[in-house]
């Protein structure tokens, strides 16, 4: 458990940012994983007073506020219309409905967790993160940046006609994934992302014909859910299934 001295719900992003500069303070997101951490927090910063919990859609993009929940991603009609079952598939296996009603998109992305279905998925879309101080950065760049004390305001996802598919392998329903895999195709270029290796997801550019070979280029490691060798095998299998889905337009 964590211990908490003060609770603040800032009225402006600037106030939240200032508070977050102190190492002893912490943004809580949905508080799902943070609860299971250890340590003392001086002030928890609750971003729920900033109106960042909406998914808005324009002609060209979706803007997903950092405090939107995983359940919002799962059930948003605009996202479904544009990306089919992609968002339902990358969320529905995560713990349970009650958990997904609390867990936030911003927390999932900012945490850059090794087990993240969400990070794996967003990496194959044209996704940018909007950071309060650093501005707009492509997600693929964000995952390589050092962790700092900026605030992730929202994700910006382009509606660029891309077709995307999401797959994961789990030892049992609602468990953490053994491996996650997302792929998208646009104008002959495929983005393939593999996560839970068990390191955080990464993305590579390839073609439909070379997806399985591209899966081999990722690094796979071992943990209690599976060996590196097994994950490498799964990577090929999931990439193969993703390829089939993209080829058949079953996305």
């Amino acid at each position: 458990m964590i211990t908490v001295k003060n609770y603040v719900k800032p009225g402006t992003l600037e106030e939240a940012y200032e508070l977050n500069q102190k190492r002893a303070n912490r943004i809580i997101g949905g508080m799902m994983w943070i609860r299971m951490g250890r340590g003392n927090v001086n002030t928890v910063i609750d971003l729920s007073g900033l109106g960042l919990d909406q998914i808005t859609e324009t002609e060209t993009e979706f803007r997903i506020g950092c405090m939107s929940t995983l359940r919002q991603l799962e059930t948003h009609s605009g996202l479904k219309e544009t990306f089919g079952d992609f968002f339902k598939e990358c969320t529905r296996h995560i713990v349970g409905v009650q958990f997904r009603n609390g867990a936030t998109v911003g927390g999932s992305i900012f945490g850059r967790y090794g087990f993240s279905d969400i990070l794996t998925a967003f990496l194959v879309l044209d996704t940018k993160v909007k950071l309060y101080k650093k501005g707009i950065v492509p997600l693929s760049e964000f995952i390589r940046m050092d962790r700092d004390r900026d605030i992730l305001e929202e994700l910006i996802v382009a509606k660029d006609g891309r077709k995307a598919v999401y797959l994961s392998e789990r030892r049992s329903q609602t468990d953490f994934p053994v491996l996650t895999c997302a792929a998208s195709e646009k104008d002959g270029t495929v983005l393939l992302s593999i996560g839970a290796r068990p390191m955080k997801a990464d993305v590579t550019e390839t073609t439909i014909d070379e997806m399985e070979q591209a899966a081999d280029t990722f690094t796979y490691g071992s943990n209690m859910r599976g060996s590196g060798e097994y994950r490498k095998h799964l990577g090929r299998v999931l990439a193969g299934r993703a390829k089939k889905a993209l080829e058949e337009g079953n996305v």
Partner: protein
Amino acid sequence: MEVQFELNGKPVHTEIEAGAVLLDVLRDLGCYSVKCGCETTNCGLCTVWVDGTPRLSCSILAAGISGRKITTLEGLQEEAARFGAYLAAEGAEQCGYCSPGFIMNVLAMERELCVSGHCPDAEEIREYLAGNLCRCTGYAGQLRAVEKYLRESRG
């Protein structure tokens, strides 16, 4: 610090620690249906509704719920008894420890999915309730009870 919210339709003002989770605050207020079953944020036993949405009360800071409407099983006695009868009729209850969280999520599912004449099928029900763990029933009886309850109460 002080927090004010609505609990089962009644206004509540109470003094809490800044780091208190909703689960503990609700138990201190006498809602003993709300229990912590796993310590790892996944068993669903602590399910309550926040403004009508099912959430895990073990992972909500009580300080953040000012002005919200919280519903626990204590506030849904009649409905819970009605569904409980279906659970009992199917022999779906053994120790009963997980029932409060399970019932809260079944009733939330009914409100969310049973709209405009839709009745969820077994697969949808299983998926909605996957976040409620039970270690003694094997789930089959629970599923029968839920299906029967929805069919008979929703037509």
